[in-house]
């Protein structure tokens, strides 16, 4: 019994210490006066690694999820003779939920794990230490550009995901199942709102981007610098980041649409 309470206490302390350390890391990376001339090329490089290289999986998943939504939605809506509502159903589920959430999950799996592994490896091979000994702050040199690249590229990926998904829904709904072309778009337009749906979706994906990138970078920066440590840190990034996305999604949805 006492053992259990002690474990709870230790777990709580560890969590608080981890949160503090990760905050310090983020603060160290982002505070201080910016040096655009030096950071810009690093940022672009990371945008490529984090954003462009995730594009393929985002487009493919977006297309398929849009198509499946249209297929599933159609079979339900046709029973009520409401197949014209297919457009808003696909668009709203993508813009409000699936776009930001699925992008967040895929991003955690694709880019987040890669970030953790890369930084963990840099730590294990003493590259981070060596930067420090060269009087270059690894937080600002290594962590900061990766953070900004993740923060900027994930909302872009989420937008592309939603757009491609809606197009996938259009392909299945209109081209294949024969929902009226005009009705598909016009009913969608009358129910999708700039602020409520598109902007809130973007805000969601910004929050997810912040959290996922932060977790991935912290797990890498704080990992045990051995191969076992890196692999468990990578797993932990994907699990923690995915749970964080799902949990935050509930909170944000309650705040925005509740």
């Amino acid at each position: 019994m006492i053992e259990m309470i002690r474990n709870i206490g230790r777990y709580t302390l560890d969590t608080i210490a981890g949160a503090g350390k990760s905050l310090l890391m983020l603060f160290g990376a982002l505070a201080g006066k910016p040096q655009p001339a030096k950071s810009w090329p690093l940022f672009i490089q990371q945008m490529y690694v984090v954003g462009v290289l995730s594009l393929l999986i985002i487009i493919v998943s977006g297309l398929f999820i849009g198509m499946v939504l249209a297929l599933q939605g159609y079979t339900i809506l046709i029973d009520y003779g409401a197949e014209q509502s297919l457009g808003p159903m696909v668009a709203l589920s993508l813009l409000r939920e699936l776009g930001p959430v699925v992008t967040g999950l895929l991003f955690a799996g694709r880019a987040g794990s890669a970030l953790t592994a890369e930084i963990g490896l840099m730590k294990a091979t003493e590259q981070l230490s060596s930067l420090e000994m060269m009087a270059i702050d690894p937080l600002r040199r290594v962590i900061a550009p990766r953070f900004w690249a993740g923060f900027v590229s994930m909302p872009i990926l989420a937008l592309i995901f939603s757009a491609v998904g809606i197009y996938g829904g259009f392909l299945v709904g209109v081209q294949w199942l024969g929902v009226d072309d005009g009705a598909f778009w016009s009913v969608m337009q009358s129910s999708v709102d700039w602020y409520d749906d598109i902007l809130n979706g973007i805000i969601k994906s910004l929050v997810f981007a912040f959290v996922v990138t932060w977790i991935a970078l912290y797990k890498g920066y704080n990992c045990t610098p051995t191969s076992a440590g890196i692999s468990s840190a990578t797993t932990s990034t994907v699990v923690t980041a995915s749970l964080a996305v799902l949990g935050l999604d509930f909170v944000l949805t309650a705040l925005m649409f509740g």
Partner: protein
Amino acid sequence: METLVEIDDVKFSHGERLLYDGLSLTVPRGKIVAVMGPSGIGKTTLLRLIGGQIRPQQGSIKVAGHNIPTLSRSDLYQVRKRISMLFQSGALFTDMTVFDNVAFPLREHSKLPESIIRTIVLMKLEAVGLRGARDLFPAELSGGMARRAALARAIALDPELIMYDEPFAGQDPISMGVIVKLIRELSSSLGLTSIIVSHDVKEVMSIADYAYIIANKKVVAKGTPKELDENASGIVKQFMRGEADGPVPFHYEADDYFDDLLEGSK
């Protein structure tokens, strides 16, 4: 003789493990000083203490008159520009070519034009014999070559002090010879001060001007290689000759052997 590094009465513990208790040593300018000792006593930690990556619980560490543990961040970075460190793994940046690796500290810390940087980089690479390998990536280098490339990067900014962390570990005899030669040449031609942390007694003794042996959390012996060779104290003898058992016991601390065995049959 001017002192470049002066460590005085340092106490440092890593977690609950006490590594150093009352450690003191000095490094004169322009000399090669070796720090030796059995593995697991935190020799790398000593270099990190000098570089200011970690702080001791007690004592002072002075590099060129600056007390490292008390420096502010920006002052510490100023001091670090004057020292450099060769890591055991080389720690080359894996996403850059050898050329870019050597150019990296120059591009970061000097405002030199690219043409001059190119000249400097090629000179440093020539000094370690890797001018022809400039376009290779670290993954394409052998262990010995990677360490030489890292050495070229370490001397890119012409530091006053260079710290070698186990430079001979895991090297074949030829690359070991190459590195011994390089360290000796660099320190004599550039007037570098070197600190070598190692347990390869033979190689270290062939180049060091002065050596410290650390064991049991403090310096147990010091002197020129010749003096150490003649040292009669048990621990020094054991270490210099590589004997399995002695003052540094073969066995990790444990309960009585027979009691331990009998425990199971009770």
